[in-house]
């Protein structure tokens, strides 16, 4: 009975502590504001399956912001980051919060195309420019003037990839293996269309559920199709696993990949299995250009890894927003949108990825690098 009395007491105190913690959470507060500050909201996954992509997005933006803030200049950049855990509801909520509460003048994100797409009506309604590296075709087809794609979209990437695989590498039996989410499906379908334009059909066309880790079933179909080249698209971790498992099954295939694999993590995870893989990417740390090398070294010293395309894209995006404010002298969404939409080949913003200007639908376009993985390093084949 003594024990039960003690338990009752423990329960009582536990309950009290728990309830007071609840109350304390309800009371806690935040937020202050200043002048001459360019507030930029960053929406992306920092938890959940795509957390690593969200981290790259944030790192790139943060690096440029720190550079601008450290340099002498009128304006400083304040980044406000929100986690959406790759859930589109949360992306949209975060966007509304950033725009209406924090009064950000630009929104960066989201990383997943569906979520970026879900945000488009919101940024359009509140008239705040949105910058995303999501590749889904639909994102820029909503008739919104406020969306800017700061990456090469799915059609551009897959066209470059298909063209290179067929015409340069000389493959005509290419198998496609894609994750059954929006990213994978959109890449795979555009790739298929690109092949069809060259009067080819994929040798095998297989999907896999996003959470899957074992691809031997799909790879068996690939093997049956006698394909000589494999285009795996989806998360870089899945693509690395596919490479490993294909090797284990004794398949020797030329691997090709899109910007989804353009991260050093792909090589780290894939190891020997991804040797010889050809990847199209907007940015490569292998580029000997001194400006790029400075950037790479700086990033490495801050974040202890190679920068990837997402980092570079976000680095330039923040740079662009800053330039728009400096050039127009106004910190407001409308003038940023106006300035950036008005960029042309001549007046382009020159960033680490090259010259930035946008097409009528808000798509940026720049040449992609074709790189090959050799001895665990990327070697540029052509740009």
């Amino acid at each position, binding site marked *: 009975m003594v024990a039960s009395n003690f338990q009752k007491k423990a329960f009582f105190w*536990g309950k009290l502590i728990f309830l007071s913690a609840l109350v304390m959470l309800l009371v806690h507060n935040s937020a202050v504001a200043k002048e001459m500050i360019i507030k930029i909201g960053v929406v992306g996954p920092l938890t959940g399956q795509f957390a690593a992509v969200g981290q790259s997005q944030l790192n790139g933006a943060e690096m440029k912001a720190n550079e601008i803030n450290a340099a002498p200049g009128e304006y400083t950049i304040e980044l406000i980051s929100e986690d959406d855990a790759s859930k589109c509801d949360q992306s*949209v*909520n975060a966007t509304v919060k950033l725009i209406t*509460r924090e009064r950000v003048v630009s929104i960066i994100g989201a990383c997943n195309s569906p979520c970026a797409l879900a945000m488009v009506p919101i940024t359009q309604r509140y008239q705040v420019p949105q910058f995303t590296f999501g590749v*889904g075709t*639909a994102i820029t087809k909503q008739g919104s003037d406020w969306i800017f794609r700061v990456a090469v979209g799915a059609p551009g990437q897959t066209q470059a990839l298909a063209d290179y695989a067929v015409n340069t590498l000389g493959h005509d039996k290419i198998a496609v293996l894609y994750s059954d989410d929006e990213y994978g499906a959109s890449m795979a379908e555009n790739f298929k269309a690109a092949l069809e334009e060259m009067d080819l059909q994929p040798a095998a066309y297989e999907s*896999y559920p996003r959470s899957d880790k074992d691809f031997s079933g799909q790879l068996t179909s690939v093997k049956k199709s006698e394909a000589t080249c494999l285009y795996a698209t989806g998360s870089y971790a899945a693509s690395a696993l596919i490479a490993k498992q294909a090797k284990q099954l004794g398949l020797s295939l030329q691997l090709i990949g899109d910007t989804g694999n353009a991260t050093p993590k792909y090589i780290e995870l894939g190891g020997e299995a991804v040797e010889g893989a050809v990847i199209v990417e907007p940015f490569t740390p292998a580029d000997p250009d001194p400006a790029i090398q400075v950037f790479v070294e700086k990033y490495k010293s801050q974040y202890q890894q190679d920068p990837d395309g997402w980092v570079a894209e976000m680095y330039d995006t923040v740079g662009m927003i800053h330039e728009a404010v400096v050039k127009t002298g106004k910190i407001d969404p409308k003038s940023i949108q106006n300035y950036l939409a008005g960029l042309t080949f001549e007046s382009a913003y020159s960033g680490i990825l090259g010259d930035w200007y946008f097409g009528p639908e808000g798509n940026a376009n720049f040449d992609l690098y074709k790189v090959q993985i050799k001895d665990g390093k990327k070697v540029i084949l052509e740009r």
Partner: protein
Amino acid sequence: MDFVTIPQLAFSGLTIGCVYSLVGLGFALTLRATELINFAQGEMVMLGAFIGLTLISFFHLPYIMVFILSIILTGIFGMFMERFILRRILDNKSPLLNLLIATLGISISLQALAIILWGREPVPYPDIFSVEPVMFFGIRLQHLNLWILCLGLASMAALQFFFQKTMTGISWRAASLDPSTAALYGVNRQRNVSLTFALSGALGGGAGVLIAPLYFASFGMGHSVLVKSFAAAAMGGFGVVGTMIGGLALGAIETLAAGLISSEYKNVIMYVILLAVLMVFFRPKTPTGRSITEGSKVAAGRAVNLFSADMPFWIRPSALLLGAAVWLIIPAVFDVYTMRILNLALIFAVAALGLQLIVGYTGQFSFGHAAFFGIGAYTSALLAIQLNLPFLLTLPLAGAAAGLVGWLAGPLLRLSGHFLAIGSLAMGEIIFLLMLNWKWLTKGAYGLYGIPFPSIFGFEISSDYAYYFLVTMVLGLICFLVHRLTDSRFGRGLIAVRENELAAMVNGINLISQKTKAFVIGTACAGIAGALYAHYVTYINPDSFQFHVSVEMVTMVVIGGLGSVPGSLIGALVIILLPEYLRGLADYRLVVYGGLLIGFMMYLPGGLADLARYPLRILRQRLQKNVREVTQ
């Protein structure tokens, strides 16, 4: 098909199947000892993988040592988890669902902690074994896969030996068959439960060390094997040998189906097989009654009736007035962002109300509610986009479509308890997969965009404030209807089914029909909520209707308070608002969120509605006394 492909596929299938078996065994053990579905089992896998990784890369231990050490460490962790969190809830005699939510909280917290400790990115294991395969009649056998198979099977054999041949194991089995008799013979239940959690933690950790070299270590890795492992355990009837075979079979079926039939439909095939197995082998022959010592299936509190005849006459009008005032003041004081979150929460509250009817009133588990939410969303969106139908028509049609599918799924309700839980989960996943793969209808993973805002009598409801009024009116109507339903002969029948199926049936209740009706009405509510959701966010894709959303809905209902209409509202508000509210905590957001879930289950087992009942009861007593004084 040649003679190498099939065995080659079967070999990979068996390897992953072996992992399903190990994790599934963890499920089976905890389920049999404590009736608990342990959602944190997946995180044991993750912990095992990271502990193993740490041991390998820092201490350079041989793999077999790493395997054994990780098993021991995760075993200890499992024991601690039981001792400091779950035991309290078990001791409260809390019903199943509360325990389940607590383990969900543990799972969320552990994942968030893992991110803080080990980062967001998957980490590869160093190559431990030669990558050159062993050739066996043309089949390529990887060293690593062979190791996984050997160690996995050895662990299972050891477990089987433990249960069949050792005294502790035998008494464990006795206790799981008949706890009260075993207690008479001196079997210590507490020790048994500790042992169970240690074992299942160890099994999960072992599985983690085994698969991580194949699939990398990452914070979310447990999640991907969770559902399938549970399915393996269910197919095996939650026995040791059964689960072993179930896991291996599942792995083989899955891989062979992908290789030989269709990779798009391989999971559909798997879930259909699972459902078939459940329906054929695990349908209870006779319903069970309930003895007074048993807890209810759900911890449902009793509503405090403020409007009964013995209360003062002015209480109803003043409550109405107060309600109306709050209703009108809310949009006046809150900003757009808050209104948006609030609207979403209220939309989810509509779905939660439906779930409340199924779980809280009728006592039937459903882990597929989000699928019906999705059916409603797609129905309404497609009708609006393709046929230009007005919202006032698509809204009820969305409810009808979801209800119809709910009716078709009715036979599932012949299952009970855990089998119903896993059955409804499988059904939800099948619906999700069909949304993903019927591209001609749903546009698959691309989703539907450009869903029009509702337009009622020519007035377009596009602002967050206008939507608030739409949603609250629908919600109010549904609350009213659900209240009427539950406060009637029909509603008493539902509660009777929850309380005691045996007694209900001999008192003239047709169990299947009663459960099906509750299910149809509940799923129709989800459908209506889905329509409200689709036209609010204007973009939907299958991701929004996956398993984890179903679990979230169950959490809303439990945290709010089972068997309480206002409880569902409070629960939806808490579950939607809390993560938004905790944004300031950054990385620790989900750690705290998970911790709060655990705290709710430990200290507020009856839900938040229970907390509100106390002051209400006092209010009621006060007012009643006043009436008496006046009459005297």
